[in-house]
């Protein structure tokens, strides 16, 4: 295979060379036998980190994170690992490749088999999800550099009201749907493009992105992990995986004594309070609400799909080919007076306009179809959230919510049952 490729290359380059000679506007002069032309070259890759190393470090980090959070139950250990990940994946590797962005590469590879993708990217996408299925969101706790960035600057967490967390909690599913839509149609990688922290990792970037990153950091000082909770599309997937996890974070290593000390300890609002003692609410109202929500569910799905399909023509503009085709149409209709670099390049290339229009039409069709599915997905998530809010589950003691707990381990330090908190205190407050 390789040999064949080389042969074709040689053939190609010789024919190109032969036909090229004729086309020279300024034929290369004969500079005599003593003249040695320099060799055309570009720098070799010298400091490359092989993808296998990155994958190995990811596996080690995930294992360590799970061990420290679940077995050692150590907040300090989690915090240290978090800082280490921030240093390596964030500032050293400058945030690329990360599992969050890998969503898009995988989505594109699934929908377009010809898309170029490295195997390592697929592994980066799968591994944290697999770990979460077994150990909860330990990836978020100490491996993700974006999470780590927000974790280390969290100084004074404020509690957000329930309605606000529920409202903002919808954003990740919209973001995920759009990111997959744009990646699958080959339009753009929006997650990478609008990653708020990447400019900070690189210590460089456009002013807009730097300001966005800085504002996220400032918000992170008072609101726990705003990106993770209210935007991160990968966090949504991890939350779902975490609901099924084999092991999970438990606030207390033993029986909960319901001392209520941990109640306010979670900056992410992931601790659920027991409700077994309180009287069940009016069952009739609850039942009616549930029925209403079950009726609303299909409506929400249909409405959301319809809205997205309606927006599809605008979203198709994310694709450069669609933008170019529309621009060419406008220029040809003399609706605009100037040209763009892109339209100029297209006209120079001599490609027929019809071909471009056909390509753009196909992309537009794909986007429209994909928008429908993305809309249905968003509607489904909304419906499920509404239904789950209308159901009541009995909780015996203080627990970390499976989906929203990121295994940071802050609650461990507040639990008097935890032997670690009892032993070293010389006053002996336990």
């Amino acid at each position, binding site marked *: 295979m390789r040999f064949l490729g080389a042969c074709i290359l040689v053939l190609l380059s010789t024919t190109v060379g032969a036909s090229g000679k004729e086309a020279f506007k300024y034929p*290369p002069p004969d500079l005599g036998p003593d003249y040695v032309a320099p060799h055309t070259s*570009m720098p*070799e890759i010298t400091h490359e980190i092989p993808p296998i190393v990155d994958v190995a470090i990811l596996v080690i980090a995930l294992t360590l994170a799970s061990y420290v959070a679940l077995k050692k139950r150590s907040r300090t250990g989690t915090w240290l690992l978090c800082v280490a990940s921030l240093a390596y994946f964030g500032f050293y590797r400058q945030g*690329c490749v990360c599992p969050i962005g*890998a969503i*898009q590469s995988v989505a594109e*590879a699934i929908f377009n088999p010809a898309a*170029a993708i490295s195997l390592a990217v697929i592994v980066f*996408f799968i591994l944290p999800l697999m770990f979460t299925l077994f150990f909860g969101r330990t990836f978020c706790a100490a491996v993700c550099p974006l999470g780590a960035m927000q974790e280390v600057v969290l100084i004074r967490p404020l509690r957000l009201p329930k309605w606000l967390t529920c409202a903002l909690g919808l954003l990740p599913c919209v973001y995920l749907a759009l990111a997959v839509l744009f990646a699958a149609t080959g339009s753009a990688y929006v997650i990478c493009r609008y990653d708020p922290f990447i400019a900070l990792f690189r210590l460089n970037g456009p002013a807009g992105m730097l300001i966005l990153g800085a504002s996220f950091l400032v918000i992170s000082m008072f609101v726990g992990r705003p990106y993770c909770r209210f935007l991160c599309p990968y966090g949504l997937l991890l939350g779902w995986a975490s609901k099924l996890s084999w092991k999970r974070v438990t606030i207390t290593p033993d029986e909960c004594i319901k001392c209520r000390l941990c109640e306010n300890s979670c900056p992410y609002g992931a601790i659920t309070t027991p409700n077994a003692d309180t009287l069940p609410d009016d069952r009739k109202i609850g039942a009616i609400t549930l029925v209403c929500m079950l009726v609303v569910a299909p409506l929400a799905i249909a409405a959301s799909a319809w809205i997205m399909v309606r927006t599809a023509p605008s979203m198709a503009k994310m694709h450069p080919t669609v933008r170019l085709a529309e621009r060419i149409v406008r220029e040809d209709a003399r609706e605009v007076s100037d040209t763009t670099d892109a339209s100029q390049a297209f006209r120079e290339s001599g490609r027929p306009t019809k071909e471009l229009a056909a390509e753009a039409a196909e992309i537009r069709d794909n986007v429209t179809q994909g928008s429908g599915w993305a809309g249905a997905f968003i509607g489904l998530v909304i419906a499920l959230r509404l239904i789950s809010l209308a159901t009541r589950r009995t909780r015996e003691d203080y627990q970390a919510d499976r989906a929203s707990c990121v295994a940071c381990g802050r609650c461990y330090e507040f639990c008097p049952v935890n032997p670690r908190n009892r032993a070293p205190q010389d006053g002996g407050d336990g």
Partner: protein
Amino acid sequence: MDKTQDKLTRRNFLRTTTRGVCAAGLGALALTAARGKGVSMRRMVWQIDPTKCTACGNCATHCVLTESAVKCAHDFSKCGRCNFCFGYYKSGSSGAKSHAGVEFQLCPTHAFVRKHVVEDSYEYTIDIDKCTGCGICVKGCKEGNGSLFLQVDQDRCMNCNECTIATACPAQAFVRRPADDPYWLQQRPEAKS
């Protein structure tokens, strides 16, 4: 420990089963993503297709690196060794002497070096450390033989998941190539013999 966790309640059974299904699903997803022709064991790197490149100048300004990863390459087999090089002199430099300064040179960083060979022939080389990948010389040389072209210096490229230059490229000239054959050198070593 959470006592309910070990008990085989109905909910736990359901959870274990779903977990298994999900793990299997994830595996299937990975396999679907890995089935395509574009999948590579190696890293995939960004590169410029010089046949599409219009040397618009975005490479110098849109890279995430302060000094762009894009550099200029020179195909010496194509170079006409012109005295009045379109890639070296600004248009309208009829008053320029052979040792012109910033006022007549196109290259903003003096990375494009001119050396006299014989008579009216000059050799032009690129000092890659100074090159900013602005493509001004490439654009100039398009009027000549077109021996200059832009390439992503793989030793500098961060290999971002979404290349910011690629999104700004008006000619959609950025493509992914496997890391073991990262350059689109017009003059290939095989063809030299």
